[in-house]
């Protein structure tokens, strides 16, 4: 049987491949020959990083049009590339852009999609993926063909593994129809985030409704700064408008796996746990001794976050 060809949808931040794409290269290498698809202007370092993480090939569309227009030029280029090259499997990370491109591509190909997978494998010619469902179930899911199969994978499902290879670059020719450039990216403003972002942080301090009001998130920011970590949130406080959606951790938010997760005033609903229970260590602070979050905590503290968090920050600052 010919080697399976597995493509990974890749995006850049500050000129470097995003971590989720590097994670998926690990998955792709395990399944066959890994290739990265990169539709964005990029420097040599980005290409080298993809090779170093196992991409044998980088399909590179080096055109500014991909940053000026959203979704449709990417889908058009990808569909043409798929038609020409006939890969077996495409893996997409769970980023906003990847989700948009994947859904539209699936619509164009008339293909099905597996979303939210945490592992992907083949059993003979049958594709199988593991998909956690609501935190209470884990499903094994397959897709009807024909190939290519389209799968979206949750963050942190695979480790980043530098293997020290070199990628062959294959330019993606752009003969893009202007009619495929309908969504103009008027501006992209980087949010000046202090410290690490949620996906990469080793320590996450997350807040829930128990903080009482939006202003109290400042207490978490101070603790996070002290620990070199990032701040996250439950959906209840995102819905309340205290913090933006990008803070949300859980089933419908981000999946995080830090070394330490400190849950402050979070009840531990199953949908929240779905996004953080892979954390190596969990500290939970909650007034309610019966809160579900304590069931998965390594250290459970029954008490008032508004008292404990500032004291803890102060104590750590004094060290």
């Amino acid at each position, binding site marked *: 049987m010919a080697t399976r060809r597995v493509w990974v949808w890749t995006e850049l*931040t500050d000129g470097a491949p995003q971590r989720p794409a590097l994670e998926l290269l690990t998955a792709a290498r395990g399944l066959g020959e890994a290739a990265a698809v990169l539709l964005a202007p990029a420097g040599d370092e980005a290409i080298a990083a993809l090779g170093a993480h196992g991409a044998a090939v980088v399909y590179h569309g080096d055109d500014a049009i991909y940053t000026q227009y959203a979704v449709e030029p990417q889908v058009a280029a990808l569909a043409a590339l798929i038609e020409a090259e006939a890969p077996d499997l495409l893996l997409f990370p769970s980023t906003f852009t990847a989700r948009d491109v994947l*859904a*539209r591509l699936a619509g164009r190909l008339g293909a099905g999609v597996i*979303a939210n997978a945490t592992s992907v494998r083949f059993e003979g010619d049958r594709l199988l993926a593991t998909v956690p469902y609501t935190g209470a179930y884990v499903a094994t899911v397959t897709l009807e063909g024909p190939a290519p199969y389209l799968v979206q994978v949750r963050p942190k499902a695979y480790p980043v593994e530098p293997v020290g290879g070199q990628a062959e670059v294959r330019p993606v020719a752009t003969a893009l129809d202007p009619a495929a450039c309908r*969504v103009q990216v008027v501006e*992209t403003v980087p949010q000046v985030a202090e410290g690490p972002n949620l996906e990469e942080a080793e320590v996450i301090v997350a807040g829930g409704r128990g903080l009482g009001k939006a202003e109290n998130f400042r207490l978490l920011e101070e603790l996070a700064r002290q620990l070199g970590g990032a701040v996250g949130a439950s959906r209840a406080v995102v819905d309340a*408008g205290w913090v933006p959606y990008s803070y949300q951790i859980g089933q419908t938010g981000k999946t995080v796996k830090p070394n330490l997760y400190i849950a402050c005033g979070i009840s531990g609903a199953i949908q929240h746990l779905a996004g953080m229970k892979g954390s190596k260590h969990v500290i939970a602070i909650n007034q309610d001794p019966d809160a579900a979050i304590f069931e998965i905590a*390594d250290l*459970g503290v029954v008490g008032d976050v508004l008292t404990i968090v500032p004291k803890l920050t102060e104590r750590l600052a004094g060290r």
Partner: protein
Amino acid sequence: MKICVTVKQVPDPNLPMQVDPATHRLVRNPDQSILDPADEYGVETALRLVEEHGGEVVVVSMGPPSAADALRRAMAMGADRAILITDEALAGSDARATARALAAVIRGEQPDLVICAIEATDAYTGMVPGMLAELLDLPQLTFARQVAVEGQTVTVHRDIEGATQVLRAQLPALLTVTASIAEPRYPSFKGVMAAKRKPIDERDLASLGLEAGAVGAAGAAERVVALEEVREEKQGQMVTDDGTGSSVEAIVAFLERIQVV
């Protein structure tokens, strides 16, 4: 301006979810099902746009006959009319099959805007809106936390990883909206009464011109082959704070033990 909002009836997310072990499908008990809270943001967004620019809000759903209740709720909020795609053969649809059915109806409506939630609360694949945009050949502006329409131009503000972004396109277009976009209104008594008289247009497969094999379980590409229940519990250490921050020492000791400090 005519706006179609896709809305779904989902099992009440505040109750434990149940999956039928034989079919691997979610148990949908009509008495315990509601309009997806995520879709209320789309309905609210549409109502505000129509209040500003004039026009009509049409809510569209695919589901069992009981999904009419979810449509009534959206109409009680203020939507003008509803379309329910319901047919035995639609059961077991995946995102692809759902998008096909919704597209068939929305195509006939020729709306200026289609509004979806970013993902459904029960299935949360987030794949239907993008598929729908492609099938309808509409530009898609997603994850909106703010939307404005001026003339034929729609502008969306959104948050993505590490950045905020502004997207712009010409109508007609498809949007997905997040919870930050607007606080959904609570239906008034008058609204509830008015909704009882508003029409729900029921469509079956034949009227959509769809093949039975294109939708429902037969048209689904994604299949569940096994389902396992999981339960996880840790036996962690517990401390109780005395109200003055006495637990801080235990926390610091833990941080030292795991070498975070």
